[in-house]
Each structure stands twice: as C-alpha cells, then as structure tokens.
C-alpha cells in the first residue's frame, strides 16, 4: 500500500509539473520578446498619447460648433497618424529583433 501511495504521490507531483510546462509552452520566447517590445513602445508613445487625450478634452470644451468640428477632424487625423507610427515602430523593433536573432 505504501508503495502504491508513493507512486501516486510522485505521479501527482509530476502531473502538476506537466501542467506548469503546458502553460509555459503556450508562450514561446519570441512571443515574450514581442510583448516586451510592445510594452517599451507603449512607454515611448505615452507622452504623445497623453497629449492627444488632453487635446480631446480641450476640443470637448469648445462651444463654437464649426471650430469644434474642424478640431475633431484634425484630432482624428492625428490619432490615425499616431496608430500608424505606433505600429510602424513595433514592426521596426521586431525587424531589429530578427536581425539580432539571425546574427547570433
């Protein structure tokens, strides 16, 4: 009986270890690097995104509808440009990562 229980205890611990391994295998090293890059780019773009949010607040307080409309249009263009730059930066950083990977 002791041997049986010992075997089951070892098997139980081993299955728990396998569950941890399954969770680890779900994300590859490259995925982790991508997440890190996205975090870094987000930090770099933090000031710009904050400025855009502040501008939105200022536009909301404008009372003249024509000026508000024009402001909103230009704000929307700025937002689109922001996302373009943001995605381009991530792509650039990922390319750099690939260069590093090939090099080493």
């Amino acid at each position, binding site marked *: *009986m002791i041997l*049986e*229980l010992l*075997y*089951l205890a070892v*098997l*139980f611990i*081993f*299955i728990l270890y*396998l*569950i941890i*391994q*399954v969770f680890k*295998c*779900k*994300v*590859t090293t490259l*995925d982790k690097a991508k997440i890190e890059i996205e975090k870094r780019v987000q930090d770099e773009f933090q000031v710009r995104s904050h400025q855009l949010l502040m501008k939105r607040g200022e536009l909301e307080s404008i009372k003249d509808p024509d000026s508000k409309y024009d402001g909103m249009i230009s704000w929307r263009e700025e937002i689109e440009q922001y996302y373009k730059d943001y995605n381009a930066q991530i792509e650039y950083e990922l390319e750099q990562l690939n260069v590093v990977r090939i090099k080493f």
Partner: protein
Amino acid sequence: MFAGYSELLNELNSWLWLATIILPFLVLLTRSGNRSYFVVAAVWCSVQLLNLKIEGFLWETSKNNLIYWFGTWATIDALSIILVLASHKTLKIKLGFEAFSISICIAILALLQIGTYIDGAVLKTYLMKEAYTIGVNTGNLANALILSVPLLSVCLNTFKQRRRAM
C-alpha cells in the same frame, strides 16, 4: 442525481472514439488545422485506441487491486501530455488552443483517477464514485468537442461570408 446526463454520456462515449478519429481527417480535408492541432489529435487518437485495446484486459487484472486500473490510466494520461509537449518542442511550435485545452483536460482526468483511487481504496469514503464516471466521460466528450473547433470555425466563417454575400 446526474442519472440522465450519465446515461447520455455513456451512450455518447461508445461512439466518441469514432468521432475522435474522423474529426482530424475532416479538419485535414478542410485545411483548417495547424501543426499543433494535428500533433494533439494524433496523440489523443492513439490514447483512445489504446484505451479500447487494453480496457478489458485491465479490468480483469485490476479486480484484486484497483491501483492497476487507476494507476495505468493516470500514467497513460501523463505520458500523453509528455508526448504532446515533446512533439511541440521537437517541431519548435507553440501549443495552439486545441493542444493546450486537451493537455489541461487530460491532466485533470489524470488527477481525477488519482483522487478516485485515494477516495475509494485508501480513505474508503466512496464520495467520488459518481464524479469519476461523469468526469471521465465528460472529459472524453470535451476533448472530442475541442477537436471539432477548427471545423466549427470554418463553418461559422462560411456562414458569415454567405450572409454578407446575400
């Protein structure tokens, strides 16, 4: 308590192995699965066929000592997870949704086997008797359903495309 559900599961379970084998072929025909899917499908199909092959023999052997019954199933489950992980590491691919879900499901089934043995043979409380039957059958059904996910997503996409075209 779950008599109707248990009966339904038992009926389904006798046909489940067939569905488990057919589903990957259908996914292959529709080209909707990735490498991770086929790895886990191959492992799960092998486990199902092995189950069918050894179930009778194992039942006869384990009449005197239930450790052979529960221990063997738990060991087979653990080995199948190892096989899934090792194949993914060898092929250098990451676990997809299906592989991840089926691996976790198999791990839960293995823990259920261990728990039921401890409950029935060591503590002799027999609290998990019903949970074991329902749990194992539900696990098998869940794995078969997970194997059909790529097919379901293809069907859903086709339906959406046709709806847009109309």
